[in-house]
């Protein structure tokens, strides 16, 4: 007998009211007693060996005196790990306030991850490698904190890098975000970097709780009396240069 699919193909050529009527009839018939007799063609799954794709990621710290926390890198499906106008995830908050990327990297949505081994000093560069055999791991995220701030971070998220050909490279100059989770009071004890050595992450959210672009460090030299920061900690956009090369 004809399978349901074949029948549908034929009726597609019939006018719409007729098609609806006959589909309804078939549907009812199947409900009654013909279900067992419908034979579906066997599904053939093509067997393809897993293909490994690798990327080399080079990041340069463009700031004057903002060390960057150990860089978090992830490959994942089509999603963004933060967005301007949305609240930061708890994992991003931890990274942006304290430079601790462990929860961010451990997120279940990540398919492949890697982390820098230590902070990246101003003027320095670091190179990381990441590989995957998962065909869904097409989207790239990188995040790192500017550690002499309350909750500034730089990075990019949800960028499709699957279009990169072998040995092709792509570069970005990255701006600085504010996770919106901690007030920028620059106060003693709130900055985890060497300018203060204070507490980084605090679960309390006392800012607008929406990710946006950072307005920059004010510092005590420029009129914020509560600040432990100096003119040296000021920064501007862009703060990071990033280059991704597909190496495999």
């Amino acid at each position, binding site marked *: 007998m004809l399978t349901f699919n074949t029948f549908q193909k034929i009726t597609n050529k019939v006018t719409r009211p007729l098609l609806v009527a006959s589909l309804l009839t078939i549907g009812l018939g199947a409900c009654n007693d013909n279900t067992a007799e419908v034979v579906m063609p066997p599904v053939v799954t093509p067997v393809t060996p897993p293909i490994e794709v690798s990327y080399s990621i080079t990041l340069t710290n463009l700031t004057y005196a903002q060390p960057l926390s150990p860089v978090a890198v992830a490959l994942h499906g089509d999603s963004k790990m933060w967005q301007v106008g949305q609240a930061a995830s708890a994992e991003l908050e931890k990274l942006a306030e304290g430079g601790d990327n462990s929860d961010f990297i451990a997120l279940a949505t990540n398919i492949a991850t890697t982390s820098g081994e230590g902070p990246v000093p101003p003027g320095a560069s670091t190179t990381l490698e990441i590989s995957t055999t998962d065909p869904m791991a097409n989207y790239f995220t990188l995040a790192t904190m500017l550690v002499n701030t309350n909750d500034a971070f730089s990075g990019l998220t949800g960028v499709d890098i699957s279009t990169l050909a072998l040995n092709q490279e792509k570069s970005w100059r990255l701006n600085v975000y504010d996770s919106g989770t901690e*007030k920028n009071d620059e106060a003693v004890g709130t900055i985890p970097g060497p300018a203060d050595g204070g507490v980084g992450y605090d679960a309390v959210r006392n800012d607008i709780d929406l990710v*946006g*672009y950072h*307005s920059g460090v004010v510092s005590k030299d420029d*009129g*914020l009396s509560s600040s432990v920061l100096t003119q040296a900690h000021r920064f501007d*956009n862009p703060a990071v240069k990033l280059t991704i090369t597909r190496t495999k």
Partner: protein
Amino acid sequence: MKVIKKSPIKAVLSSLTLALISSTTMAQELSITVTNLTQGLHFTPVITAAHNSENQIFMSGQMATSELQAMAEGGDISGLANLLSNADANINENPAAGLLAPTMSTSFTLTNESANTHLSLAAMILPSNDGFVGLDSWTIPEEAGTYTVFLNAYDAGTEANNELRGSGAPGEAGMPVPPPLDTSIGMNGTGITDMESNNKVHIHRGSLGDDDMTAGKSDINNSVQRWLNPIAKLTITVQ
């Protein structure tokens, strides 16, 4: 012989090409999203226009028109809308129906006629005396796709940046303070400056602000209402 054989195909191809070209140069539908990237600035009603290559909303290094001044000092876009409308531009006004709050986005569609090949945008930024976010004559691509443009903050050059509560009327000192901003802006400042020596449109040097909400030099809060460029993101999808 070969030429004769080929020519019908060629003719079809070239008429196809012509059809494609004419369809892209006739009218385009643009889906536009404006994102306020900052955490401390509000945008007053945004005006966006597709216009021909001979018109502009503003131009760096040139004196502001009185219509631009009204927008930059008080957020009033009616004068710019009139100018653009007289120039046969395609215009979108006030898509956010009021202020565009920090980090928020607003979206709209704009259909541009064939002569209107350039896109411009302006909205006052608050708190500021005569600051605005601007896009000057971006060439609208003919190729369908999604394009991203980052926008900077400009100073209209028409008012001294005293950074004090005041008026949004053109030519009057001070910053307009609509109700949603009232609690976030300080008071009783003594004023940063009463000079505006560069009276041409220029990239805004940024606000100074201070950390005193009831006194000090400025009524702007220095740890919230400063900014770094870019301050806005424009996502334009050409259908």
